[in-house]
Protein backbone atom coordinates (compact mmCIF):
# COMPACT_ATOMS: atom_id res chain seq x y z
CA UNK A 1 0.00 0.00 0.00
CA UNK A 2 1.34 3.37 -0.91
CA UNK A 3 2.16 5.91 1.72
CA UNK A 4 -0.57 8.25 0.59
CA UNK A 5 -3.20 5.54 0.53
CA UNK A 6 -2.04 4.50 3.93
CA UNK A 7 -2.40 8.03 5.16
CA UNK A 8 -5.89 8.28 3.75
CA UNK A 9 -6.81 5.03 5.50
CA UNK A 10 -5.34 6.29 8.75
CA UNK A 11 -7.42 9.40 8.36
CA UNK A 12 -10.58 7.37 7.96
CA UNK A 13 -9.64 5.16 10.91
CA UNK A 14 -9.14 8.20 13.10
CA UNK A 15 -12.52 9.51 12.13
CA UNK A 16 -14.22 6.16 12.58
CA UNK A 17 -12.97 5.98 16.15
CA UNK A 18 -14.13 9.49 16.97
CA UNK A 19 -15.04 9.65 20.62
CA UNK A 20 -18.57 11.02 20.51
CA UNK A 21 -19.19 9.73 23.97
CA UNK A 22 -16.19 11.35 25.59
CA UNK A 23 -17.01 14.74 24.13
CA UNK A 24 -20.65 14.59 25.07
CA UNK A 25 -19.78 13.50 28.56
CA UNK A 26 -18.01 16.78 29.11
CA UNK A 27 -20.25 19.60 30.18
CA UNK A 28 -19.32 23.19 29.57
CA UNK A 29 -20.59 26.07 31.70
CA UNK A 30 -22.70 27.30 28.78
CA UNK A 31 -21.12 30.72 28.41
CA UNK A 32 -21.75 31.20 24.70
CA UNK A 33 -23.61 34.41 23.88
CA UNK A 34 -26.34 34.27 21.25
CA UNK A 35 -25.22 35.76 17.94
CA UNK A 36 -27.83 37.82 16.13
CA UNK A 37 -28.69 37.08 12.48
CA UNK A 38 -27.20 40.46 11.60
CA UNK A 39 -23.91 39.57 13.28
CA UNK A 40 -23.78 36.22 11.50
CA UNK A 41 -24.40 37.88 8.13
CA UNK A 42 -21.69 40.42 8.80
CA UNK A 43 -19.12 37.81 9.74
CA UNK A 44 -19.92 34.89 7.44
CA UNK A 45 -17.84 35.38 4.30
CA UNK A 46 -17.31 31.77 3.22
CA UNK A 47 -18.59 30.83 -0.22
CA UNK A 48 -19.46 27.18 -0.79
CA UNK A 49 -19.10 25.46 -4.18
CA UNK A 50 -22.89 25.38 -4.59
CA UNK A 51 -22.91 29.17 -4.35
CA UNK A 52 -24.10 29.40 -0.76
CA UNK A 53 -22.90 32.71 0.63
CA UNK A 54 -22.49 34.53 -2.68
CA UNK A 55 -23.71 38.11 -2.26
CA UNK A 56 -25.73 40.31 -4.60
CA UNK A 57 -23.83 42.11 -7.32
CA UNK A 58 -22.22 41.20 -10.64
CA UNK A 59 -19.27 41.90 -12.88
CA UNK A 60 -17.72 41.24 -16.28
CA UNK A 61 -14.19 40.70 -17.53
CA UNK A 62 -14.02 44.20 -18.97
CA UNK A 63 -14.76 45.79 -15.61
CA UNK A 64 -12.39 43.36 -13.93
CA UNK A 65 -9.55 44.35 -16.23
CA UNK A 66 -9.73 47.90 -14.88
CA UNK A 67 -9.64 46.78 -11.26
CA UNK A 68 -6.83 44.37 -12.04
CA UNK A 69 -4.72 47.09 -13.67
CA UNK A 70 -5.12 49.27 -10.62
CA UNK A 71 -4.85 46.82 -7.72
CA UNK A 72 -3.43 43.48 -8.84
CA UNK A 73 -0.92 43.80 -11.66
CA UNK A 74 1.99 44.88 -9.45
CA UNK A 75 2.09 41.46 -7.74
CA UNK A 76 0.55 39.14 -10.32
CA UNK A 77 1.90 40.59 -13.56
CA UNK A 78 0.30 41.61 -16.83
CA UNK A 79 -2.51 39.23 -17.80
CA UNK A 80 -1.96 37.21 -14.63
CA UNK A 81 1.43 35.98 -15.79
CA UNK A 82 2.82 36.13 -12.26
CA UNK A 83 5.89 37.63 -10.58
CA UNK A 84 6.69 38.58 -8.03
CA UNK A 85 3.76 36.54 -6.67
CA UNK A 86 1.52 33.73 -7.88
CA UNK A 87 0.87 33.13 -11.57
CA UNK A 88 -2.89 33.20 -12.09
CA UNK A 89 -3.25 32.38 -15.78
CA UNK A 90 -1.92 29.65 -18.04
CA UNK A 91 -0.18 26.39 -17.24
CA UNK A 92 -2.84 24.42 -19.07
CA UNK A 93 -1.65 20.90 -19.83
CA UNK A 94 1.25 21.02 -17.35
CA UNK A 95 -0.41 19.50 -14.29
CA UNK A 96 0.48 15.89 -15.09
CA UNK A 97 4.07 16.76 -16.08
CA UNK A 98 7.27 16.96 -14.05
CA UNK A 99 6.97 20.76 -13.98
CA UNK A 100 3.36 21.52 -13.15
CA UNK A 101 2.29 25.16 -13.27
CA UNK A 102 -0.64 25.53 -10.91
CA UNK A 103 -2.89 28.45 -11.85
CA UNK A 104 -6.56 29.23 -11.47
CA UNK A 105 -7.11 27.93 -14.98
CA UNK A 106 -4.85 24.91 -14.93
CA UNK A 107 -5.44 23.65 -11.39
CA UNK A 108 -8.22 25.18 -9.29
CA UNK A 109 -11.27 22.89 -9.07
CA UNK A 110 -13.98 25.44 -8.21
CA UNK A 111 -14.76 28.91 -9.61
CA UNK A 112 -16.45 29.94 -6.36
CA UNK A 113 -13.06 29.69 -4.65
CA UNK A 114 -11.79 32.57 -6.79
CA UNK A 115 -14.50 34.90 -5.50
CA UNK A 116 -14.12 33.68 -1.91
CA UNK A 117 -10.37 34.17 -1.85
CA UNK A 118 -10.26 37.56 -3.58
CA UNK A 119 -12.91 38.92 -1.27
CA UNK A 120 -11.31 37.69 1.96
CA UNK A 121 -7.64 38.20 1.23
CA UNK A 122 -6.90 40.46 -1.73
CA UNK A 123 -5.34 42.87 -2.42
CA UNK A 124 -2.66 41.77 0.02
CA UNK A 125 -2.15 45.31 1.35
CA UNK A 126 -5.87 46.02 1.74
CA UNK A 127 -7.88 42.82 2.19
CA UNK A 128 -11.68 43.01 2.37
CA UNK A 129 -11.61 46.44 0.71
CA UNK A 130 -13.13 45.48 -2.66
CA UNK A 131 -16.82 45.84 -3.37
CA UNK A 132 -18.81 42.77 -4.33
CA UNK A 133 -19.12 44.11 -7.88
CA UNK A 134 -15.33 44.54 -8.08
CA UNK A 135 -14.86 41.01 -6.78
CA UNK A 136 -17.27 39.53 -9.29
CA UNK A 137 -15.56 41.53 -12.04
CA UNK A 138 -12.07 40.35 -11.06
CA UNK A 139 -13.32 36.79 -10.90
CA UNK A 140 -14.78 37.15 -14.38
CA UNK A 141 -11.55 38.68 -15.69
CA UNK A 142 -9.36 35.88 -14.35
CA UNK A 143 -11.73 33.18 -15.60
CA UNK A 144 -11.79 34.85 -19.02
CA UNK A 145 -8.00 35.20 -19.21
CA UNK A 146 -7.85 31.47 -18.58
CA UNK A 147 -10.28 30.82 -21.43
CA UNK A 148 -12.96 29.44 -19.14
CA UNK A 149 -15.71 32.00 -19.78
CA UNK A 150 -16.42 34.40 -22.60
CA UNK A 151 -15.50 38.05 -22.45
CA UNK A 152 -19.10 39.17 -22.14
CA UNK A 153 -20.22 36.60 -19.55
CA UNK A 154 -21.66 38.18 -16.42
CA UNK A 155 -20.59 36.65 -13.14
CA UNK A 156 -23.07 36.79 -10.26
CA UNK A 157 -24.50 34.56 -7.54
CA UNK A 158 -26.42 32.55 -10.12
CA UNK A 159 -23.82 32.12 -12.86
CA UNK A 160 -20.56 31.70 -10.94
CA UNK A 161 -21.39 28.32 -9.30
CA UNK A 162 -22.23 26.96 -12.76
CA UNK A 163 -18.78 27.64 -14.18
CA UNK A 164 -17.01 24.33 -14.79
CA UNK A 165 -13.29 24.44 -14.10
CA UNK A 166 -11.08 22.46 -16.53
CA UNK A 167 -9.21 20.53 -13.84
CA UNK A 168 -12.21 19.82 -11.61
CA UNK A 169 -12.40 16.11 -12.30
CA UNK A 170 -8.78 15.50 -11.35
CA UNK A 171 -9.40 16.21 -7.66
CA UNK A 172 -9.96 13.24 -5.38
CA UNK A 173 -11.14 13.57 -1.80
CA UNK A 174 -9.22 11.59 0.82
CA UNK A 175 -12.13 12.26 3.17
CA UNK A 176 -15.56 11.52 1.66
Amino acid at each position, binding site marked *: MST*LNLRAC*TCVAVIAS*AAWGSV*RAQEGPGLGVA*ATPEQVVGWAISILPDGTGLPAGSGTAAAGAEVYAEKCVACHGVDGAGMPNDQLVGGHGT*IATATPVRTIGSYWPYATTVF*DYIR*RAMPLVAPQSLTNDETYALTAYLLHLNGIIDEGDVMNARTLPRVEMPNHDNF*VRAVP
Partner: protein
Amino acid sequence: MRETTSQTASQLLEPVAGNGLLHRRLFLTGGAALVGAAGLEFMTVRPAAAAPPDVPAWMKTPGAGMSAYGARSRHEEGVVRTVGTTPGTIGTGASRTPLERLEGIITPGALHFERHHNGIPDIDPAEHRLLIHGLVDRPLMFDLESLSRYPLVSRIQFLECSGNSGGNNAPEAPQQSAGGIHGLVSCSEWTGVPLGVLLEEAGVRRAARWIVAEGADAAAMSRSIPKLKALDDAIVAIYQNGERLRPGNGYPMRLFLPGWEGNACVKWLRRVQATSEPAMTKDETSKYSDLMPDGKALLFTFPMGVKSVITSPSGGLSMHGPGLYQISGIAWSGAGRIRGVEVSADGGQTFAAAALEGPVLPKALTRFRMPWRWDGGTAVLQSRAIDETGAVQPTRQALLAERGAPFRYHYHAIQSWEVSPEGGVRNVYA
Protein backbone atom coordinates in the same frame (compact mmCIF):
# COMPACT_ATOMS: atom_id res chain seq x y z
CA MET B 1 30.66 -8.79 40.26
CA ARG B 2 33.36 -6.82 38.57
CA GLU B 3 33.78 -9.57 36.05
CA THR B 4 30.07 -9.62 35.31
CA THR B 5 30.01 -5.87 34.84
CA SER B 6 33.00 -6.02 32.59
CA GLN B 7 31.35 -8.65 30.50
CA THR B 8 28.28 -6.49 30.21
CA ALA B 9 30.34 -3.51 29.28
CA SER B 10 32.29 -5.38 26.70
CA GLN B 11 29.10 -6.79 25.27
CA LEU B 12 27.66 -3.30 25.07
CA LEU B 13 30.80 -2.16 23.30
CA GLU B 14 30.31 -4.67 20.53
CA PRO B 15 29.03 -2.78 17.47
CA VAL B 16 25.36 -3.54 16.78
CA ALA B 17 25.42 -2.21 13.23
CA GLY B 18 27.91 -1.05 10.64
CA ASN B 19 30.37 1.80 11.02
CA GLY B 20 30.49 1.92 14.81
CA LEU B 21 26.91 1.99 16.11
CA LEU B 22 26.85 0.70 19.68
CA HIS B 23 24.07 -0.79 21.78
CA ARG B 24 21.35 1.67 22.70
CA ARG B 25 21.66 0.75 26.37
CA LEU B 26 25.32 1.75 26.58
CA PHE B 27 24.59 5.13 28.11
CA LEU B 28 21.62 3.94 30.13
CA THR B 29 23.56 1.26 32.00
CA GLY B 30 26.57 3.35 32.79
CA GLY B 31 28.51 1.30 30.30
CA ALA B 32 30.14 4.40 28.92
CA ALA B 33 31.94 4.91 32.22
CA LEU B 34 33.56 1.52 31.72
CA VAL B 35 34.75 2.36 28.29
CA GLY B 36 38.14 3.32 29.70
CA ALA B 37 38.38 0.01 31.56
CA ALA B 38 37.73 -1.76 28.32
CA GLY B 39 40.81 -0.15 26.91
CA LEU B 40 39.15 2.13 24.42
CA GLU B 41 40.03 5.80 24.28
CA PHE B 42 37.02 7.90 23.58
CA MET B 43 37.94 11.16 25.21
CA THR B 44 40.66 13.65 24.59
CA VAL B 45 42.09 15.26 27.74
CA ARG B 46 42.37 18.96 27.09
CA PRO B 47 45.44 20.86 28.16
CA ALA B 48 45.32 22.68 31.51
CA ALA B 49 46.10 25.98 29.84
CA ALA B 50 42.52 26.04 28.56
CA ALA B 51 41.10 26.25 32.12
CA PRO B 52 39.40 29.46 33.31
CA PRO B 53 40.66 31.40 36.36
CA ASP B 54 40.20 29.88 39.80
CA VAL B 55 37.58 32.46 40.74
CA PRO B 56 35.64 33.91 37.80
CA ALA B 57 34.58 37.55 37.75
CA TRP B 58 30.89 36.75 38.30
CA MET B 59 31.73 35.26 41.69
CA LYS B 60 33.28 38.53 42.86
CA THR B 61 30.33 40.85 42.41
CA PRO B 62 26.59 40.61 43.08
CA GLY B 63 24.64 39.27 40.15
CA ALA B 64 21.83 40.94 38.24
CA GLY B 65 18.43 41.54 39.76
CA MET B 66 15.30 39.62 38.97
CA SER B 67 13.13 40.36 35.96
CA ALA B 68 9.37 40.25 35.50
CA TYR B 69 9.66 38.19 32.31
CA GLY B 70 12.74 36.10 31.79
CA ALA B 71 15.29 36.21 29.02
CA ARG B 72 17.82 33.62 27.97
CA SER B 73 21.57 34.00 28.39
CA ARG B 74 23.07 36.59 26.09
CA HIS B 75 25.51 33.86 25.09
CA GLU B 76 22.63 31.90 23.54
CA GLU B 77 21.25 34.68 21.39
CA GLY B 78 22.55 32.98 18.28
CA VAL B 79 19.95 30.24 18.67
CA VAL B 80 17.32 31.64 16.34
CA ARG B 81 14.72 30.64 13.81
CA THR B 82 15.44 30.70 10.08
CA VAL B 83 13.10 33.31 8.67
CA GLY B 84 11.98 33.27 5.05
CA THR B 85 9.64 35.95 3.68
CA THR B 86 7.80 35.83 0.36
CA PRO B 87 9.13 38.57 -1.96
CA GLY B 88 6.99 41.66 -2.03
CA THR B 89 5.36 40.93 1.32
CA ILE B 90 6.05 41.79 4.93
CA GLY B 91 4.52 38.93 6.85
CA THR B 92 3.99 36.13 4.37
CA GLY B 93 6.34 33.20 4.72
CA ALA B 94 7.71 30.93 7.41
CA SER B 95 10.18 30.78 10.25
CA ARG B 96 11.79 27.46 11.14
CA THR B 97 12.70 26.00 14.51
CA PRO B 98 16.49 25.52 14.97
CA LEU B 99 16.09 21.80 15.72
CA GLU B 100 19.86 21.22 15.82
CA ARG B 101 20.27 23.65 18.70
CA LEU B 102 17.52 22.21 20.92
CA GLU B 103 17.13 19.09 23.06
CA GLY B 104 14.28 17.16 24.63
CA ILE B 105 10.83 17.30 23.06
CA ILE B 106 9.37 20.70 24.06
CA THR B 107 9.95 23.64 21.73
CA PRO B 108 10.31 26.98 23.53
CA GLY B 109 7.50 29.35 22.52
CA ALA B 110 9.92 31.89 21.11
CA LEU B 111 11.42 29.27 18.79
CA HIS B 112 8.22 27.54 17.68
CA PHE B 113 7.94 27.57 13.90
CA GLU B 114 5.48 29.94 12.26
CA ARG B 115 3.81 30.05 8.87
CA HIS B 116 1.77 33.11 8.01
CA HIS B 117 -0.29 34.04 4.98
CA ASN B 118 -0.44 37.79 5.55
CA GLY B 119 1.38 38.69 8.73
CA ILE B 120 0.70 38.43 12.45
CA PRO B 121 -2.40 40.35 13.57
CA ASP B 122 -2.21 42.47 16.71
CA ILE B 123 -5.42 41.25 18.33
CA ASP B 124 -7.03 42.89 21.35
CA PRO B 125 -8.68 39.96 23.14
CA ALA B 126 -11.46 42.22 24.38
CA GLU B 127 -12.42 42.81 20.74
CA HIS B 128 -12.02 39.22 19.59
CA ARG B 129 -14.84 36.69 19.42
CA LEU B 130 -15.22 33.12 18.18
CA LEU B 131 -18.49 32.76 16.27
CA ILE B 132 -19.99 29.30 15.83
CA HIS B 133 -22.80 29.22 13.29
CA GLY B 134 -24.11 27.49 10.18
CA LEU B 135 -25.88 24.16 10.66
CA VAL B 136 -26.39 24.70 14.39
CA ASP B 137 -29.52 25.33 16.47
CA ARG B 138 -28.04 28.34 18.28
CA PRO B 139 -25.34 30.57 16.73
CA LEU B 140 -23.03 31.50 19.61
CA MET B 141 -20.14 33.83 20.31
CA PHE B 142 -17.33 33.17 22.78
CA ASP B 143 -14.58 35.45 24.03
CA LEU B 144 -11.26 34.56 25.64
CA GLU B 145 -12.52 35.21 29.14
CA SER B 146 -15.47 32.86 28.78
CA LEU B 147 -13.40 30.12 27.11
CA SER B 148 -10.97 30.33 30.01
CA ARG B 149 -13.81 29.27 32.34
CA TYR B 150 -14.50 26.02 30.46
CA PRO B 151 -12.99 22.73 31.60
CA LEU B 152 -9.57 22.74 29.95
CA VAL B 153 -7.52 19.86 28.59
CA SER B 154 -3.72 19.81 28.10
CA ARG B 155 -1.73 17.64 25.76
CA ILE B 156 1.88 17.57 24.61
CA GLN B 157 1.67 17.30 20.83
CA PHE B 158 3.64 18.21 17.75
CA LEU B 159 2.58 20.69 15.10
CA GLU B 160 4.02 20.36 11.60
CA CYS B 161 3.49 22.32 8.43
CA SER B 162 2.73 19.91 5.60
CA GLY B 163 5.30 21.78 3.51
CA ASN B 164 8.02 20.81 5.98
CA SER B 165 11.17 19.21 4.53
CA GLY B 166 10.08 19.99 0.98
CA GLY B 167 13.57 21.33 0.30
CA ASN B 168 14.76 17.75 0.02
CA ASN B 169 12.73 17.52 -3.17
CA ALA B 170 15.32 19.64 -4.94
CA PRO B 171 17.58 17.86 -7.45
CA GLU B 172 20.63 18.82 -5.36
CA ALA B 173 20.57 18.27 -1.60
CA PRO B 174 20.16 21.69 0.05
CA GLN B 175 23.11 22.53 2.29
CA GLN B 176 21.15 23.67 5.30
CA SER B 177 20.84 22.78 8.96
CA ALA B 178 18.35 20.26 10.35
CA GLY B 179 16.13 23.20 11.29
CA GLY B 180 16.56 24.87 7.94
CA ILE B 181 15.28 21.75 6.19
CA HIS B 182 12.95 20.21 8.75
CA GLY B 183 12.23 23.09 11.14
CA LEU B 184 8.55 23.48 10.28
CA VAL B 185 7.84 21.08 13.14
CA SER B 186 7.67 21.95 16.82
CA CYS B 187 6.15 20.44 19.94
CA SER B 188 4.32 22.14 22.78
CA GLU B 189 1.96 21.50 25.63
CA TRP B 190 -1.31 22.84 24.22
CA THR B 191 -4.15 23.72 26.58
CA GLY B 192 -7.66 24.59 25.52
CA VAL B 193 -11.34 23.79 25.30
CA PRO B 194 -12.49 20.74 23.33
CA LEU B 195 -14.13 22.12 20.19
CA GLY B 196 -16.80 19.44 20.52
CA VAL B 197 -18.02 21.00 23.76
CA LEU B 198 -18.60 24.32 22.01
CA LEU B 199 -20.21 22.69 18.97
CA GLU B 200 -22.57 20.73 21.22
CA GLU B 201 -23.46 23.88 23.13
CA ALA B 202 -24.38 25.52 19.82
CA GLY B 203 -26.47 22.47 18.93
CA VAL B 204 -24.55 21.28 15.88
CA ARG B 205 -26.92 19.40 13.61
CA ARG B 206 -26.58 15.90 12.22
CA ALA B 207 -26.66 17.33 8.71
CA ALA B 208 -23.36 19.08 9.44
CA ARG B 209 -20.50 16.89 8.25
CA TRP B 210 -17.81 19.57 8.06
CA ILE B 211 -16.80 22.74 9.78
CA VAL B 212 -15.13 25.68 8.09
CA ALA B 213 -12.59 27.34 10.39
CA GLU B 214 -11.45 30.90 9.73
CA GLY B 215 -8.75 33.09 11.24
CA ALA B 216 -8.81 36.78 12.14
CA ASP B 217 -5.66 37.58 10.18
CA ALA B 218 -5.38 39.70 7.04
CA ALA B 219 -5.66 36.52 4.95
CA ALA B 220 -8.80 35.38 6.81
CA MET B 221 -7.14 31.99 6.35
CA SER B 222 -9.77 29.28 6.20
CA ARG B 223 -9.88 25.50 6.05
CA SER B 224 -12.61 22.86 6.04
CA ILE B 225 -12.34 20.15 8.72
CA PRO B 226 -14.38 16.94 9.00
CA LYS B 227 -16.86 17.28 11.85
CA LEU B 228 -15.83 13.93 13.27
CA LYS B 229 -12.29 15.26 13.85
CA ALA B 230 -13.75 18.40 15.38
CA LEU B 231 -15.75 16.24 17.80
CA ASP B 232 -12.92 13.79 18.42
CA ASP B 233 -9.78 15.50 19.72
CA ALA B 234 -9.79 19.05 18.29
CA ILE B 235 -9.35 21.84 20.80
CA VAL B 236 -9.56 25.61 20.75
CA ALA B 237 -6.12 26.22 22.24
CA ILE B 238 -5.63 29.25 24.48
CA TYR B 239 -2.35 28.30 26.21
CA GLN B 240 0.98 27.05 24.83
CA ASN B 241 3.62 25.70 27.20
CA GLY B 242 1.72 27.14 30.12
CA GLU B 243 1.40 30.73 28.94
CA ARG B 244 -1.10 32.37 26.64
CA LEU B 245 -0.52 31.71 22.96
CA ARG B 246 2.04 33.95 21.34
CA PRO B 247 0.76 36.27 18.60
CA GLY B 248 2.70 34.30 16.00
CA ASN B 249 0.92 31.13 17.07
CA GLY B 250 -2.62 32.40 17.11
CA TYR B 251 -3.20 34.65 20.11
CA PRO B 252 -5.71 34.71 21.64
CA MET B 253 -7.06 31.37 20.33
CA ARG B 254 -6.31 28.84 17.63
CA LEU B 255 -7.65 25.57 16.35
CA PHE B 256 -5.41 22.61 17.22
CA LEU B 257 -5.94 19.28 15.45
CA PRO B 258 -3.61 16.66 16.92
CA GLY B 259 -1.50 14.92 14.27
CA TRP B 260 -2.94 16.90 11.35
CA GLU B 261 -1.18 19.34 9.05
CA GLY B 262 -0.45 22.71 10.59
CA ASN B 263 -2.30 24.74 7.98
CA ALA B 264 -5.59 23.23 9.12
CA CYS B 265 -4.91 24.29 12.72
CA VAL B 266 -6.24 27.76 11.99
CA LYS B 267 -4.62 30.51 14.05
CA TRP B 268 -6.47 33.55 15.46
CA LEU B 269 -9.64 31.45 15.24
CA ARG B 270 -12.63 33.74 14.71
CA ARG B 271 -15.31 31.69 13.03
CA VAL B 272 -16.46 28.08 12.85
CA GLN B 273 -19.22 27.41 10.34
CA ALA B 274 -20.91 24.02 10.38
CA THR B 275 -21.63 22.90 6.81
CA SER B 276 -22.76 19.83 4.93
CA GLU B 277 -19.85 20.01 2.48
CA PRO B 278 -16.31 21.47 2.55
CA ALA B 279 -15.95 25.07 1.40
CA MET B 280 -13.13 24.17 -1.00
CA THR B 281 -11.08 27.14 0.12
CA LYS B 282 -8.05 28.43 -1.74
CA ASP B 283 -5.67 26.88 0.75
CA GLU B 284 -7.22 23.41 0.72
CA THR B 285 -7.56 23.20 -3.05
CA SER B 286 -4.91 25.25 -4.85
CA LYS B 287 -2.23 24.98 -2.15
CA TYR B 288 -2.40 22.18 0.40
CA SER B 289 -3.53 19.46 -1.98
CA ASP B 290 -1.27 16.59 -3.00
CA LEU B 291 -0.64 16.59 -6.75
CA MET B 292 0.32 13.11 -7.92
CA PRO B 293 2.44 12.22 -10.98
CA ASP B 294 -0.64 11.19 -12.98
CA GLY B 295 -2.18 14.63 -12.54
CA LYS B 296 -4.69 13.57 -9.91
CA ALA B 297 -4.74 15.80 -6.83
CA LEU B 298 -5.69 14.52 -3.38
CA LEU B 299 -7.75 16.81 -1.17
CA PHE B 300 -7.91 16.62 2.62
CA THR B 301 -4.79 14.52 3.26
CA PHE B 302 -4.66 15.81 6.81
CA PRO B 303 -2.57 13.37 8.92
CA MET B 304 1.18 13.89 9.00
CA GLY B 305 3.21 10.80 8.12
CA VAL B 306 5.66 8.94 10.34
CA LYS B 307 8.97 10.75 10.34
CA SER B 308 12.28 11.25 12.12
CA VAL B 309 15.42 13.28 11.78
CA ILE B 310 18.79 13.15 13.50
CA THR B 311 19.44 16.58 15.00
CA SER B 312 22.94 15.84 16.32
CA PRO B 313 25.16 15.44 14.42
CA SER B 314 23.42 17.23 11.56
CA GLY B 315 24.04 19.63 8.71
CA GLY B 316 26.40 22.46 9.52
CA LEU B 317 27.51 21.05 12.87
CA SER B 318 31.07 19.82 13.42
CA MET B 319 32.54 16.68 14.95
CA HIS B 320 35.35 17.03 17.48
CA GLY B 321 37.61 14.18 16.52
CA PRO B 322 37.07 10.44 16.54
CA GLY B 323 35.52 8.94 19.63
CA LEU B 324 32.27 8.25 21.39
CA TYR B 325 29.24 10.34 20.44
CA GLN B 326 25.58 10.28 21.23
CA ILE B 327 23.42 10.51 18.14
CA SER B 328 20.26 12.40 19.09
CA GLY B 329 17.11 13.05 17.14
CA ILE B 330 13.35 13.41 17.08
CA ALA B 331 10.59 11.20 15.71
CA TRP B 332 6.86 11.76 15.36
CA SER B 333 3.73 10.49 13.65
CA GLY B 334 0.30 11.95 13.10
CA ALA B 335 -1.16 8.47 13.58
CA GLY B 336 -0.11 8.02 17.21
CA ARG B 337 2.89 6.92 19.24
CA ILE B 338 6.33 6.17 17.91
CA ARG B 339 6.99 2.47 18.30
CA GLY B 340 10.65 2.55 17.42
CA VAL B 341 13.49 4.32 15.67
CA GLU B 342 16.39 2.60 13.95
CA VAL B 343 19.66 4.32 13.19
CA SER B 344 22.23 3.61 10.49
CA ALA B 345 25.79 4.90 10.23
CA ASP B 346 26.52 3.30 6.86
CA GLY B 347 23.97 4.97 4.65
CA GLY B 348 21.18 2.51 5.31
CA GLN B 349 23.05 -0.75 4.74
CA THR B 350 22.59 -1.78 8.37
CA PHE B 351 20.33 -0.43 11.10
CA ALA B 352 20.11 -0.91 14.85
CA ALA B 353 17.44 0.13 17.36
CA ALA B 354 17.89 3.46 19.10
CA ALA B 355 16.79 4.17 22.67
CA LEU B 356 13.49 6.05 22.93
CA GLU B 357 13.51 8.54 25.75
CA GLY B 358 10.27 8.84 27.66
CA PRO B 359 7.68 10.10 27.70
CA VAL B 360 6.65 8.52 24.42
CA LEU B 361 3.37 10.32 23.80
CA PRO B 362 0.87 9.98 20.94
CA LYS B 363 1.25 12.62 18.23
CA ALA B 364 4.18 14.20 20.05
CA LEU B 365 7.87 14.50 19.32
CA THR B 366 9.78 11.55 20.76
CA ARG B 367 13.49 11.94 21.49
CA PHE B 368 15.73 9.06 20.45
CA ARG B 369 19.39 8.50 21.28
CA MET B 370 22.06 6.14 20.01
CA PRO B 371 25.70 5.65 21.05
CA TRP B 372 28.16 5.79 18.20
CA ARG B 373 31.88 5.30 18.05
CA TRP B 374 33.07 7.41 15.16
CA ASP B 375 36.32 6.09 13.78
CA GLY B 376 37.06 9.31 11.91
CA GLY B 377 36.09 8.02 8.50
CA THR B 378 33.25 8.96 6.18
CA ALA B 379 29.89 7.96 7.61
CA VAL B 380 26.31 8.51 6.48
CA LEU B 381 23.84 8.75 9.34
CA GLN B 382 20.16 7.94 8.91
CA SER B 383 17.18 7.39 11.16
CA ARG B 384 14.04 5.42 10.32
CA ALA B 385 10.91 5.66 12.45
CA ILE B 386 8.00 3.26 12.80
CA ASP B 387 4.76 4.21 14.51
CA GLU B 388 2.23 2.22 16.51
CA THR B 389 0.15 1.51 13.40
CA GLY B 390 3.18 -0.17 11.81
CA ALA B 391 3.79 2.62 9.29
CA VAL B 392 7.49 2.89 8.44
CA GLN B 393 9.27 6.05 7.33
CA PRO B 394 10.14 5.61 3.64
CA THR B 395 13.43 6.15 1.89
CA ARG B 396 13.75 9.24 -0.27
CA GLN B 397 13.88 7.09 -3.39
CA ALA B 398 10.69 5.25 -2.45
CA LEU B 399 8.80 8.45 -1.66
CA LEU B 400 9.87 10.15 -4.86
CA ALA B 401 8.98 7.07 -6.88
CA GLU B 402 5.48 7.21 -5.45
CA ARG B 403 4.93 10.95 -5.45
CA GLY B 404 6.90 12.05 -8.48
CA ALA B 405 8.97 15.19 -8.46
CA PRO B 406 8.57 17.90 -7.55
CA PHE B 407 5.82 17.66 -4.96
CA ARG B 408 5.11 20.16 -2.22
CA TYR B 409 3.52 18.57 0.78
CA HIS B 410 3.89 15.67 3.17
CA TYR B 411 7.56 14.93 2.48
CA HIS B 412 8.55 12.54 5.26
CA ALA B 413 11.43 10.51 3.87
CA ILE B 414 14.56 9.38 5.67
CA GLN B 415 17.20 12.11 6.08
CA SER B 416 20.87 11.33 5.36
CA TRP B 417 23.72 13.29 6.96
CA GLU B 418 27.24 12.64 5.69
CA VAL B 419 30.07 13.00 8.19
CA SER B 420 33.39 13.72 6.49
CA PRO B 421 36.85 12.73 7.80
CA GLU B 422 37.40 16.43 8.48
CA GLY B 423 34.43 16.39 10.84
CA GLY B 424 31.98 18.37 8.73
CA VAL B 425 28.37 17.26 8.40
CA ARG B 426 26.27 17.85 5.30
CA ASN B 427 22.98 16.90 3.72
CA VAL B 428 23.26 14.13 1.11
CA TYR B 429 20.85 12.01 -0.87
CA ALA B 430 21.90 8.50 -0.01
